[in-house]
């Protein structure tokens, strides 16, 4: 597997072991590689995720939402028309 040498494995881990253990190591290695993603892969996924997210963040506050917040917060004694009965839905 291409990522193998990039994982932080001790260089002597395999060469010091007897043949039988080496065979076991070969059997379990692919699964371990799956479970423990390489740092580069994790880093790259993180980068893509943030790039996507930041793209959305940069769009800022849509005008109609900004107006809504101002409307809701600047009127005295007015509750929003929308009832809030189901607020705890899914919280428990």
């Amino acid at each position: 597997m291409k990522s193998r040498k990039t994982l932080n494995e001790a260089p002597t881990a395999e060469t010091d072991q007897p043949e039988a253990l080496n065979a076991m190591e070969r059997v379990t290695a692919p699964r371990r590689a799956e479970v423990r993603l390489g740092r580069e892969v994790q880093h790259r996924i993180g980068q893509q995720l943030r790039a996507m997210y930041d793209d959305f963040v940069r769009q800022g506050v849509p005008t109609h939402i900004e107006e809504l917040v101002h409307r809701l917060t600047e009127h005295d004694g007015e509750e929003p028309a929308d009832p809030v009965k189901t607020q705890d839905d899914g919280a428990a």
Partner: protein
Amino acid sequence: MKLDPVIRDQVLATVPSLRAFAISLCGNVDRADDLVQETLLRALAHIDSFEPGTNMPAWLFTILRNLFRSEYRKRRREVEDVDGRYADTLKSHPEQTGRVEFEEFRTALSRLPSDQREALILVGASGFSYEDAAAICGCAVGTIKSRVNRARTRLADLLSIDSVDDFGPDRATRAVLAGGGRN
């Protein structure tokens, strides 16, 4: 009600990230804007339950996340192919090669189970600590960690990332070929 402008500004300052979270969760800008609007209506109606000085983003994200969850459950009963529709909304402009990789990533993200998707976004993109993310999702910190790990592994799998070499110059080309073959 008349709201402390400081609190109002905290709410407004959170909206861009809250909205990014909503879009990332549901994959549809219009639906996301509805979710944000509904979240703000509820939050402002219950602003008394927010303790000044505590984490405003976490509070708003919690409300939005719970709204999304209850809406998702409802929609699931109405429309079986929620994920398919999600994916369709993401296939909009695949003309440029950089765009293809971007779309491919969003489609892969949409294929994650929603509990893994929300955990990954909260920790990996919104910048919440594992503890805050756990509070937002109403679960244990260990659960969030495991969901984030599974999400990363699944994404790597969906995107066929075996090593950093896969992100070389050929990456975009292969994405085009893969996309053309599948669709």
